[in-house]
């Protein structure tokens, strides 16, 4: 008797697409990490009148990418990519690095949602971890190219934040895309600088971004979870 079970996906039957297409899929803002729900403190900045225009949005995003979570996430991604099975240290650091409760949830819940989808679709052995660590490890497990994956991951984060800015400030869609186009070049810069950072030297400096995240926790009305 022959039993056909064509609907069950296993690593052997999930066809591997061109790695560049796969990285666009998994680091696209459409990938179900819930990234659209987090503003990384931007909502508080807008509420306090600190971000009110396209120019402000551009400057805010550049600060996040170059000095804040952009720089640290890119370095965590690359460390996780290189870590092999030895992920404990980078996973622990990434989980402890957020200085506010909302930022901690932002990275941990996105990481958990990302890992769950990677396990389900590609059968990856990927535990729940902070998002950049889960992302870097997944890219390595799938054989996706290191630097382009880190860039795409960072651009995905930028894209979610631009979307938050478009809703909150608000901005027109083409203004949003103009901000994102500039952010793309910054993402490449940031990844180039972060690519070989040893785990002990991972860091950033964006105190007002940290502070806005703490202040977001007490905003009276909130559309976003961070």
């Amino acid at each position: 008797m022959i039993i056909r079970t064509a609907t069950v996906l296993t690593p052997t039957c999930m066809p591997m697409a061109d790695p560049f297409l796969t990285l666009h899929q998994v680091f696209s803002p459409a990938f179900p990490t819930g990234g659209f729900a987090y503003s990384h403190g931007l909502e508080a900045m807008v509420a306090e009148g600190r971000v009110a225009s396209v120019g402000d949005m551009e400057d805010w995003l550049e600060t996040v990418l170059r000095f804040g979570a952009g720089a640290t996430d890119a370095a965590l991604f690359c460390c996780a990519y290189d870590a092999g099975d030895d992920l404990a240290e980078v996973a622990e650091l990434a989980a402890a690095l957020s200085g506010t409760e909302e930022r901690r949830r932002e990275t941990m819940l996105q990481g958990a949602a990302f890992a769950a989808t990677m396990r389900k679709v590609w059968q990856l052995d990927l535990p729940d971890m902070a998002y950049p660590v889960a992302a870097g490890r997944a890219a390595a497990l799938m054989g996706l190219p290191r630097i382009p994956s880190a860039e795409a991951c960072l651009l995905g984060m930028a894209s979610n934040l631009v979307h938050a800015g478009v809703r909150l400030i608000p901005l027109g869609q083409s203004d949003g895309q103009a901000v994102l186009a500039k952010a793309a070049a910054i993402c490449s810069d940031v990844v180039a600088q972060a690519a070989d950072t040893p785990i002990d030297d991972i860091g950033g400096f964006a105190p007002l971004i940290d502070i806005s995240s703490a202040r977001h926790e007490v905003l009276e009305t909130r559309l976003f979870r961070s």
Partner: protein
Amino acid sequence: MIGGFSVSGSSKMLFPHGPANGPMTGVWLNTAGGITGGDQFTLEAAADEGAHLVLTSQAAERIYRAMPGKPGQVVNRLEIASGARADWLPQETILFDHAALDRRLDVTMAADARFLGVESLIFGRALMGETVTQLDLMDRISVRRDGRLVFADRLRLSGDAQAALNRAHLGGGAVAMATVIAAWPGASAQLETLRAMLPETAGASALDDDLIVLRILAPDGFDLRQSLIPVLRHLNGADLPRPWMI
């Protein structure tokens, strides 16, 4: 009682007499007057079960100009046993132009221990019109409670610090910043009170029930103290060690 204690580099630790039932207070003194490139300082202290240890500095620490690639290195380690308490209350660290500092504060604490810590950074001496156009800073704080890393702060800033601080959404022109950590069972109950004490350029968050992290930005060191001292006094439940008040 102090369970263990050691310092190296050009440091001295003074233990001024305090009230009979008060905490053991250690006042750190850098006899070299500051830290420059290539210097190495290590401080290790342990508070044994039930002990209360307070560590502070005699004066603000000055980080002088360093040759490129040779930062001053500072390693501080605190161990806080079950039921013990340690307060890490150094005065400000002043970063001069062309300063290079590689520093870490590693706190290892039992689940029911208490830790109150602060690190304040001043970028240049504003009163003297000095700005920090070149800096190489890597400043790490790690808090490990019951074997688990519960908080890691990693401040890294290289290059023109003043230009970075002048960015509207990074520092808004502030040149003074403090980070405060309050870790003890139920510490998060202080959150609302703390928030009510903070200026607009500060924020506090509870990372879990037993841990609060707070950042304060200020235009200069004087303003920073105006916001910081009431916060520390509240968390400390007492006045700050004497060197703060001189």
